[in-house]
């Protein structure tokens, strides 16, 4: 009884992918074995059909369009890098601003107003109360309350 060649080897024979010794075994076997010959024929037909597929048409300017897209992407990345850095630096800036504000308020609390300052402030407040009272229909107490509120919010 003839010892057949394994179908895997017949398939590799079609691809000329067998070693020298394996290939010569198949070469000797095929002339005397119709089923193996048929197998080789069918496998090579399928392989040939697959190999006949035409090239897929590459769309025009594919490479150029791709590099344009990559360039745009890179520019976007640079912008996002900037945003990234800005985000990382933001807390630092916030701390610096807070420190500066605290320092400036500490400095201003050092310089206390003189009695003359109080007098001129009191004078202008009285004048404003009289003016406001005459121009609106509020009572002097209400005007004063408003003035106090106003000056406290100014501070």
């Amino acid at each position, binding site marked *: 009884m003839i010892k057949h060649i394994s*179908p895997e*080897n017949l398939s590799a024979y079609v691809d000329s*992918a067998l070693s020298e010794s394996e290939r010569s075994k198949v070469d000797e076997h095929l002339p005397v074995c119709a089923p193996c010959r048929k197998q080789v024929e069918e496998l090579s037909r399928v392989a040939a059909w*697959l190999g006949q*597929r035409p090239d897929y048409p590459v769309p025009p300017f594919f490479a150029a369009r791709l*590099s344009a897209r990559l360039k745009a992407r890179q520019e976007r990345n640079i912008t996002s890098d900037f945003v990234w850095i800005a985000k990382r630096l933001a807390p630092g800036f916030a701390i610096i601003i807070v420190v500066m504000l605290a320092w400036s308020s500490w400095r201003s609390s050092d310089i206390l107003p003189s009695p003359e300052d109080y007098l001129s402030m009191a004078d202008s407040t009285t004048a404003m109360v009289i003016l406001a009272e005459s121009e609106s229909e509020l009572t002097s107490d209400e005007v004063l309350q408003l003035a106090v509120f106003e000056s406290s919010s100014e501070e």
Partner: protein
Amino acid sequence: MTVVMSTRNVAAGDDLSLIEDFKNGREAAFTQLVEKYQQQIFNLLFHYTGRKEDVEDLAQEVFIKVYTHLADFETRAAFRTWLYRIALNASIDHSRKLKLRRMLSLDGLTDWAKERLTFQNATSSPHQSAEQSELKQQIQAGLDRLPEDFRRALVLRDMEGLEYEEIAEITGWNLGTVKSRLFRGRQRLREFLEPYVEEAK
């Protein structure tokens, strides 16, 4: 296939010098690499997925991935193998997504049923439908039905013309597995295309 045949034997040294140029900041070197391999990659993506409408997006995705990782590419390996591996993985992912979508949607089921019907009609009257375009469609339909491992083997060997060693490197299979998957894939496809095989005799 002519382009594939002519570029297949181009020395890999060209790729390495282009990659070096790219690493040194010459962007045009990347475009040259794309131009060199775009035909092979479009073929692979189309042959594997069988989806004209998705091929260009997939190709862009593949080359963008290449661009992003090219700086880390180890020049000891062959660029082509690496590129094919990326393209093949993209194809496999895409096919899985499509399959899932088809399974989840009723429309997909109807499309699938229509395809089956076309195939059955073709098998019932092989003499009338043995034209080349019909055969092409059936080959694609047959490939789509194959288990992924077999399809991978057939696309890389029979359609892209790669050697067994290169297929082993791309897929991570050993040579014995490449050999057996090729045989079994061809066998399955042969069964699927039975009427045409008979016709050709």
